[in-house]
């Protein structure tokens, strides 16, 4: 498979650079931050410090960073187990995410969730869901609450291409469109559901067209171009806030790594991976900033340095975090208001 480009994509690509240098610098740094964060995860996983399932979004950083530009603190976010990038882009401190993966009490889920279940209620980041498509109905409910309270905020629900095959996608899409819920549905189409390519998952591989059949606005966007993602997300979010009902964004992207750290990745053609790496979202923006924003090697080195310093500190802090005593195992099975059991 090679990246397809739609009219929409071409249009957005040929737009004049809206955002200024400072803004682009921010986008680039955030993508770099996520990339380097996950590279640390790989090291710590290999060292046995991080365990369980770990799903990397390396290659998909433009999705997290681009989409989150359109969100406000009042908005809510629901995502999948492949959510490190979304968590960081949402503003959850890197040390809290590292700590979570290290199983520390200082982790953003007190070490109970691990890589797949990052939460931060204060930032309205509601997971980190491990059951494919399981977060979609919950996101619809969060949006229903906004609707009933007539709040001008939205719920952004991110999920993969594979999730679209689940009944829960269908039920949620219908419910959202039927009730005009303020829901921004973002499909991270990385062309594979584990080892299964899109064409073996879906009879109709044009996922945006599929979503449109529920009577909602749906766009396919180049998920490797962070500026295109941001533009589409902002436009969609604006409409959703204004009461348009749900929008669907299909962000066409690719994961450069295996499905999870367990995955030997025997099912993808290496040439295909290489082709997609040519469209690395970080490289794409860097190159563009070189030509359009007078960006140069030293600027890159500077960014790398800042990111490295932050992550060094974050890892350090995370490792300081204490372990929840086993006696507290049953804590939070129920709310404090009533005892456990």
């Amino acid at each position, binding site marked *: 498979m090679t990246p397809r480009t739609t009219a929409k994509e071409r249009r957005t690509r040929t737009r004049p650079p809206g955002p200024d240098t400072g803004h682009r610098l921010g986008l680039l740094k955030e993508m770099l931050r996520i990339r380097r964060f996950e590279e640390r995860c790989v090291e710590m996983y290999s060292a046995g410090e991080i365990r369980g399932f770990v799903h990397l979004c390396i290659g998909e950083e433009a999705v997290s960073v681009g989409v989150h530009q359109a969100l406000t603190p009042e908005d*809510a976010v*629901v995502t999948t187990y492949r959510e490190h990038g979304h968590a960081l882009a949402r503003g959850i401190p890197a040390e809290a995410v590292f700590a979570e993966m290290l199983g520390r009490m200082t*982790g*953003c*889920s*007190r*070490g*109970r*969730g691990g890589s797949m*279940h990052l*939460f*931060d*209620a204060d930032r309205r980041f*509601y*997971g*980190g*869901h*491990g*059951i494919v498509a*399981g977060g*979609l*109905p*919950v*996101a*619809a*409910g*969060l*949006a*229903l*609450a*906004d609707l*009933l309270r007539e709040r001008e905020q939205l*719920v952004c629900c991110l999920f993969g291409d594979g999730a679209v095959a689940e*009944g*829960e996608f269908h*039920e*949620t899409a*219908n*419910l959202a469109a*039927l009730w005009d819920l303020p829901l921004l549905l973002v499909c991270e189409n990385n062309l594979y559901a584990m080892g299964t390519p899109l064409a073996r998952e879906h009879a109709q591989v044009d996922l945006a067209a599929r979503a449109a059949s529920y009577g909602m606005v749906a766009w396919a966007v180049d998920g490797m171009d962070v500026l295109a993602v941001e533009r589409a997300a902002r436009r969609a979010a604006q409409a959703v806030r204004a009461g348009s009902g749900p929008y669907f964004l299909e962000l066409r992207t690719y994961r450069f790594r295996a499905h999870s750290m367990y995955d030997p990745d025997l099912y993808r053609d290496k040439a295909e991976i290489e082709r997609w790496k040519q469209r690395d979202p970080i490289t794409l923006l860097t190159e563009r900033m070189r030509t359009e924003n007078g960006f140069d090697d030293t600027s890159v080195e500077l960014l790398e340095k800042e990111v490295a310093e932050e992550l060094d500190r974050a890892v350090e802090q995370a490792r300081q975090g204490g372990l929840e005593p086993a006696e507290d195992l049953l*804590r*939070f*099975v*129920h*709310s404090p*208001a*009533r005892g456990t*059991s």
Partner: protein
Amino acid sequence: MTTRKAATGKAVTYREAVREALREALVADERVFLMGEDVGRYGGALGVSLGLLDEFGPARIRDTPLSESAFVGAGIGAAIAGLRPIVEIMTVNFSLLALDQILNNAATLLHMSGGQVAVPLVIRMSTGAGRQLAAQHSHSLEGYYAHIPGIRVLAPATLEDARYMLAPALSDPDPVVIFEHGSLYNVSGTLPPDTGPVDIDRAAVRRPGTDISLITHGGSLGKALQAAEQLAADHIDAEVVDLRTLRPLDDATVTGSVRRTHRAVVIDEGWRTCGLSAEITARITEQAFYDLDAPVERVCGAEVPVPYARQLEEAALPQPADIVAAARRAVG
């Protein structure tokens, strides 16, 4: 089937008692809303919410499409956002389509998030057999829900509980599943003037007795009480315990009863193997082993998809005669 015979209050049906509880909740707290298939225009598949749409409007009495997983999940999300949804699943038979949402989300999010994401959701559903609705409409799956850590499971068997269990359920900060047995909706009796919210942490002794404990819940309570009357005829004084709360189980009341009577029969319409009756039996023998004069007896639904034909359905369900026979075996 009310516990108090006192006729001071007005006569109501179980259905009306549930409806009144819903109305009260909707009036008392604007965060409360009711959502489910046909709860609005139709008035509820079993007529429970009839009239509520006119009174509270379509935003709060919300008809949903046939999408159990989505609207139960939506209830979870709305609860997380601070509302107090009451989700009606028409019957337990369809709840399997939403079980993933209930088990993996509603019951799990609080713990998995390290205490950040509470889900104050109430789910109501009818349960049980007895109306010749055949295999796919006659399940009693309370045991599935009582198995799940993180949720509370209630089974109102009396008019008072139908009327007064909803308020405490709504004030529970965590998910509560309420089972209403289909055979109870038309039961009518007199409801005493408001006795206020009931204690949903305790089982109730519906009939005191000294010779044997009949332990049951929901739709089988009436059968147990009938059996107790028959047993009284041959001088076996049975105590009838209504579990009321299926999770967490009130061990003190159950064990306390067995400690006094030294014998027990557990009655559960659900399938026997790995069902609720197994847990009650196991707990009694764990906690009152040395007080038991005979093995605990179980009277359960036969292990069969409930058939349509009347004589077969009757044979598939616990009957008072079965309870009497089991009690006699236990008393020996």
